[in-house]
């Protein structure tokens, strides 16, 4: 190999690399296909549907999708279960593998509507005259961001208190707690210890981060606010949060942080049969309506009831409210068959039969007024609590933001630390505000 020829080779290779790099960065995804002026009368083709459910719950979704395919024989839906937000974002950014994507929470709405990862659905909604007043106002609010409706709600998740009636009766408690102080008193009464001092069964686990113990789920108990109208953090200036944090940390102190940690680390997985509430190791628990389905499936013998989550002592007027969120779905930017994706999305989010079928299967709460009123909706006494929470005017959600769940994570990270080490609460909350506003500026800014 001679010098000159080798140099030419080297040069050639580098030029090739450079041009291919330019080419690669030059093409940005696939162009959007414009929508037809009228909905097609028959649907044909293949459409991919990504959702996060797995196991038994994925079966419910599949069976609903099967109904859709039966009604539209020309359509094949390619279902990808078990896809979390991170994976969904990866797949959407990579191009056209996703037509319809469904997320477990509203966290991605802000960023997906802003970036266009989910398309604006308004043209479809206008064309097909979809009645959005059928959606409950709170549900409507969390599926759009800054006037862009890029997602539709698929059922809601609502949170309330579960309690083991056998354990409560045995401890002489005949009605569920209505305030946080009552919750704490009852919980301490229900807690039992082993001879060596460790916890045997727990009345209520106050540790932040345990199962569904998240700031978002506690917030409505004190009417606590997350964001101001301009999108900046309201956490540090809200009076509800300090009240909740103070109650929670004092509760933790009464039992002992280390003791609770050790007990929690030995508990089963939240979504498995060995869930601590299902095993009777925890008498009262904050959880979503879907737990009723898990209980029926995995712990049919357990005697339990549900009630709205207790309110902060200074907010007893809020009793009956709770945290609402829900699954949301949207059409990906790179979808090659948006008409099919829209048809499926419309079916899953507005068809009363489909919503009721999924609600009965998943035990989630329907997201439209029609489905909520449907006589086919199976309402057990335990599930009824959640239907009521869903329509309570004081129920609240976590608002969409361009930083997604970032503001919740920042706050929870602080709370997590505070429950263990304490410190200056007001100053800590101020620094939470700053962190959230800083990261908003990084994403938003000019």
């Amino acid at each position, binding site marked *: 190999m001679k010098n000159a020829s080798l*140099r030419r080779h080297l040069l050639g290779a580098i030029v090739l690399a450079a041009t291919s790099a330019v080419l*690669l960065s030059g*093409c940005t995804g696939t162009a959007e296909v414009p929508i037809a002026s009228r909905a097609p009368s028959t649907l044909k083709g293949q459409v991919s549907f990504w959702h996060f459910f797995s196991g038994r719950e994925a079966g419910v979704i599949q069976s609903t999708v099967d109904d859709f395919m039966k009604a539209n024989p020309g359509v094949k839906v390619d279902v990808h279960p078990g896809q979390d937000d991170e*994976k969904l974002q*990866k*797949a959407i950014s*990579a191009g056209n*593998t996703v037509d319809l994507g469904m997320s477990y929470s509203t966290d991605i709405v802000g960023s997906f509507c802003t970036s266009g990862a989910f398309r604006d659905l308004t043209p479809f909604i206008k064309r097909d005259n979809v009645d959005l007043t059928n959606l409950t106002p709170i549900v409507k609010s969390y599926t759009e961001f800054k006037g862009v409706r890029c997602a539709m709600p698929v059922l809601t998740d609502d949170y309330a208190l579960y309690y083991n009636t056998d354990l409560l009766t045995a401890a002489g408690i005949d009605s569920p707690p209505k305030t946080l102080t009552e919750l704490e008193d009852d919980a301490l009464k229900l807690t039992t210890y082993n001879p060596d001092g460790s916890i045997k069964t727990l009345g209520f686990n106050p540790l932040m981060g345990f199962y569904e113990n998240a700031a978002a789920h506690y917030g409505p108990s004190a009417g606590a606010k997350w964001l101001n109208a301009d999108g900046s953090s309201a956490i540090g200036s809200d009076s509800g949060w300090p009240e909740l944090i103070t109650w929670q940390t004092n509760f933790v102190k009464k039992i002992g942080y280390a003791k609770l940690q050790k007990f929690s680390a030995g508990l089963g997985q939240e979504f*498995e049969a060995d869930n601590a509430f299902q095993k009777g190791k925890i008498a009262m628990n904050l959880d979503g309506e879907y737990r009723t389905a898990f209980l029926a499936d995995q712990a049919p013998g357990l005697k339990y009831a549900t009630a709205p989550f207790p309110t902060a002592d200074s907010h007893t007027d809020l009793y009956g409210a709770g945290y609402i969120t829900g699954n949301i779905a949207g059409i990906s930017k790179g979808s090659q068959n948006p008409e099919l994706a829209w048809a499926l999305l419309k079916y899953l989010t507005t068809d009363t039969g489909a919503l009721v079928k999924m609600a009965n299967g998943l035990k989630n709460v329907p997201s439209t007024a029609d489905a909520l009123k449907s006589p086919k909706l199976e309402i057990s006494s335990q599930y009824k609590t959640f239907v009521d929470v869903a329509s309570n005017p004081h129920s609240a959600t976590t608002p969409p933001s361009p930083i997604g769940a970032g503001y919740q994570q920042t706050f929870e990270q602080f709370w997590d630390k505070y429950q263990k080490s304490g410190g200056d609460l007001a100053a800590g909350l101020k620094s939470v505000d700053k962190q959230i506003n800083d990261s908003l500026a990084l994403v938003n800014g000019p």
Partner: protein
Amino acid sequence: MTAVGTRSALRSTRPRHFGRVLNWIGQHVVLSGLAVLFLAPVVFVFLTSMMTSNQTLTATIWPDPWTWDNYVRAFTQVPLVRWFANSATYAVLATAFMLASSIPAAYVLARIRFRGANILFTAIIIAMLLPPQVTAVPIYVMWSKLGMTGTLLPLILPNLLGDAFSIFLLRQFFLTIPSEYADAARIDGNGEWGVLARVIIPMAKPGIAATAIFMFFNSWNDYYGPLLYTSENEQWWPVAIGLASFRSSHGGDWGITMAITMLVMVPVVIIFFFAQRTFVEGIALTGVKG
């Protein structure tokens, strides 16, 4: 260096001999004690893999009754076979591609003078030692624009264009082959490819084997790469991702988790016993040549 101490310090041999025996016993006690500690984790993993799921949640160490049930469940409830197949595809193709592209490159770097050789070699060293996260974003963007994320291809294909660490390692091996052999082959009328195929490769077999084994294990054990590229597509998950996300995605109890852990360890250990020499020599060579 021999000028340490003084001759006058010569001691009688008897207590020294006695001391040696004590020393020997001491050393072997330490060696065996540590060996027990080193083996214990695997033993506990095995014991737990033989328990029923109720037992794993209780304070027991010894299974009662013993059951292979977790292993049966590992194969029936978990796509274990597919995970292994994916890991094998990744490791085998990456290794084969690496060999095809890196052997010629290493040969040129070891044996042929050309301008720019020093710069190229330095670039390879830097590429080899630089944390992969430094260049992760643009490379990810590149594969994403090509629509290849969600597969193992972004981890396999680059090996067609050489792997820095392998080139470096192979070059070190090639350097140990006296250049007279290659010269003789050239006089016989062989081109550079001929020299490489007829002389260098046969003589560097142990080195090539060691490099291949490194590549194989690095790909087999890789977690970061597959996490970045395949997490959204379970069809392409290698066993490393499957095991890591097992407790969160399938939520299994410790028994079945430990059964899978055992199954993940076994093939590696088997390969080790077949290729023990190559292995240990290879490892020694990477470090000692400092």
